[in-house]
């Protein structure tokens, strides 16, 4: 049995044959509905009947109830360390993990300092961060989509090699990256100060250098799951490659576009090593740079303010994830080919 059931740009005939081989390897085992493991518990062959109460609770539990339990356990596990951060942000003089008595003193001093202390222009930082992260993610998604389309739909010499190379290049240990990038930016500043040192545009360009990496692989994989029949249908109608890309492919791979965008967004918000070298004017800096400066002083870390700032900085991520859920919760592939 071939593991390779992924649809390629080959003919549909091939794929159907593979499917058949895959499925033929098992026997059937009963009617199924819904998904996955919950249903594994149910092996009966009965047609659905109107459920009685006792039955429905068991059914509900087998189908969804256990999921709630697992989810809550996972949430506790995920959020517990974050409670320390929340507690530190509400404590005017406390340390980060000095005391296990969380929430011993509640006050909003730290949050106020974020916005009132002239040495901590958090508002400016926040806006800068949003701008940089948004532009970087949108550009990254676009560049990767372009590249993934090429790798997925076109055949050319060096394709396999190129894809592997892109991935491997990103694996280089970047110990010296900061020095190298600084030198590069000096050169650029000499020619075009508007995109050089100290500018957001320069920083975004640096981030785009790392755009074509794992992300293009992710997209490549999902471009491949779209049957080439769609492309062909469009081309027969006279669409050029660009139109196919924009009107057919992109909408279909929206879930992975959102995922890549979100991952890039999170990564950019948290990046501070390169940003702190490029941006030196406090009003141009990002949240990551600003907050790290607060805690890197010798012996006098302001964990309270840092925590407050970090919590506020995590909000856009949550908001975007909330709104993007309906795109990720897709199933957009089905129905489009008909």
């Amino acid at each position, binding site marked *: 049995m071939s*593991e390779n*059931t*992924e649809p390629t740009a080959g*003919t*549909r*005939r091939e794929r159907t044959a593979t499917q058949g081989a895959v*499925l033929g390897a098992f026997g059937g085992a009963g009617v199924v509905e*819904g*998904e*996955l*493991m919950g*249903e594994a518990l149910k092996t009966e062959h009965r047609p659905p009947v109107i459920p009685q109460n006792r039955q429905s609770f068991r059914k509900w539990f087998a189908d*969804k109830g256990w999921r709630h339990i697992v*989810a809550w356990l996972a*949430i506790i*596990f995920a959020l517990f360390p974050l409670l320390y951060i929340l507690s530190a942000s509400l404590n005017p003089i406390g340390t*980060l*993990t*000095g005391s296990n008595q969380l929430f011993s003193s509640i006050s909003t001093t730290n949050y106020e300092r974020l916005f009132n202390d002239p040495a901590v222009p958090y508002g400016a930082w926040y806006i800068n961060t949003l701008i940089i992260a948004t532009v970087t993610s949108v550009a990254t998604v676009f*560049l990767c989509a372009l590249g993934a389309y090429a790798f997925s739909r*076109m*055949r050319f010499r060096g*394709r396999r090699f190129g894809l*592997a190379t*892109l991935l491997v*290049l*990103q*694996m280089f*240990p970047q*110990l010296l990256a900061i*020095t190298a*990038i600084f030198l*590069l930016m000096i*050169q650029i500043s*000499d020619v075009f100060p508007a995109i050089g040192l100290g500018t957001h545009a320069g920083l975004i360009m640096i981030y*785009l250098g790392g*755009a*074509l*990496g794992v992300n*293009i*692989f*992710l997209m490549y*994989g*999902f471009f491949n*799951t779209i*049957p*080439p*029949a769609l492309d*062909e249908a469009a081309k027969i109608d*006279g669409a*050029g490659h*660009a139109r196919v890309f924009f009107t057919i492919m992109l909408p279909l791979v929206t879930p*992975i576009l959102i995922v890549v965008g979100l991952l890039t967004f999170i990564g950019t918000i948290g990046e501070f090593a390169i940003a702190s070298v490029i941006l030196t004017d406090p009003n141009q800096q990002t949240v990551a740079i600003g907050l790290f400066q607060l805690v890197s002083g010798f012996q006098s870390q302001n964990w309270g303010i840092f925590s407050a700032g970090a919590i506020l900085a*995590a909000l856009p991520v*949550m908001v975007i*994830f909330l709104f993007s*859920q309906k795109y*990720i919760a897709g199933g957009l592939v*089905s129905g489009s*080919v008909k």
Partner: protein
Amino acid sequence: MATADQGTVNEGSAKQSTTAAPANRWGDDPLFKPKKRLTSGGLLALLVKVILLGIIDAVAILAVYILVGKGDWIAAGVLVIVVALVNFVYLRPGLLPGKYLTPGLFFLAIFQIFVIVYTAFIAFTNAGDAHNSTKEDAIAQIISTSQDRVPDSPSYTVQVLKQGDQFGLLVAEPGGDLSFGTNEQPLEEVNGPPDGWDELNLNQIIRFQDEVLAVNVPISDDINDGTLRTSDGQNAFVFTSSLEYDESADTFTDAETGVVYVDDGEGNFRAENGETLTPGWRVFIGLDNFASVFTNEQIRDPLLRVTIWTFVFAALSTLVCFAFGLFLAIVLNHPTLRGKKVYRILVILPYAFPAYLTGLVWAGMLNQEFGYINEVLLNGASIPWLADPWLARFSVIFVNMWLGYGYMFLVCTGALQSLPDDIVEAGKVDGASAWRIFRSIKMPLLFVAVAPLLIATFAYNFNNFGVIYMLTRGNPRFTDTTLDIGATDIMITMVYKVAFGGGGGRDLGLASALSILIFIIVTVVAIVSFRQTKALEDIN
């Protein structure tokens, strides 16, 4: 859902294209035979292409003009080549993959590849804090620091005078007399500023500061008595040089002891007795950095243990993150689960916080005596989570899982949503159970899509400096080496500590060489795993 009709149509056109074999300029795939002429997309596309390309070209020409103006031929040359390539790709019909890949490749080439090339370049030099700059800078610095103020000499108040392009100092001696001198003319008494010489105020002094700082007025005819210099335009002191630089012989000679320092070819001025002058400068040393890995037994002996642990750490971290992320993605993937959105957001929250902060929280929670885990959860146990070698290794992987599962969760969630339903439907129609469907249809599809991602995550964890450094700094230290290497050190942290933490400041050359070695190892592993997982096999 694709129907049988479509299948037939597909076959039909496939047959057609293979028999037609036209002079096809759009990639090589016969399926993409265009109906229209090239520059597909019509007028709008043409306009967009022309405008964008025109702007790029214009900007590039301007940049080349500026670079040439500064005499930076290398950069100008590189820019010309790059822009010519871009033009070639977009103006030539065909080369469609190039057209799609060029924007991304452009940034990659400049910012990523340049970094790699630069690192490779540095690896063959002795660059570092002790050999920080060029030989000219080093010589200038040595000269500047060898100016000793003559002991017990007074501090003079001076004024800077200027005549034409000559500068001199008007000195107020402690007794009240005035003297004046220039570089050529030693100090001599005057009654006031000489004729033709203008006094400079502070702003003017600052404007001409390069010349003012170069003023060295001999205080007498004997040069060995010293010269008068000012560094702020208001006060001056008498200096003698303890080191003389002989430009023709390229040596420094100590004025007092007569010891001669010669360029030793390795970036320092060295005397016969081995003493060197600081600073040194950067020179090529060829493969010395690479060789030191194998010859320096302090590095060599623990290297094997650290390497093994690096592989194990990267593999386990990736596996554990993936398993947990996938598990949660599956659990929360039910179409009608209530509260799904909220669950997803909460579960991904750890990933939205900077790892620096959350890593430190974990380090605090794992404290042997006071950490939450020991004190509260385990009721006062005293388990050395970060101090015992094996527990520390476990802790590091565990915390890394907490930090990284959000990423896998996101990806798997997107992946599960995007799996083509037609195959699943076909499976259901054929009568497979949900578990079977998962195991044999979804998992393989998922895996093929995600396999490269796993490889990339492996590589990321291979070089995951942050987690190790934050939690344990690589400790607990090995007891059989004097270097600061420990049980949780991975290769990259070892490189950091050896190259940056050793005596003499940062050794960038050594760090670069070790980085390249690590890169080679990671690349080999990646290529081998690509072959194994056949992740690229479908490209046939």
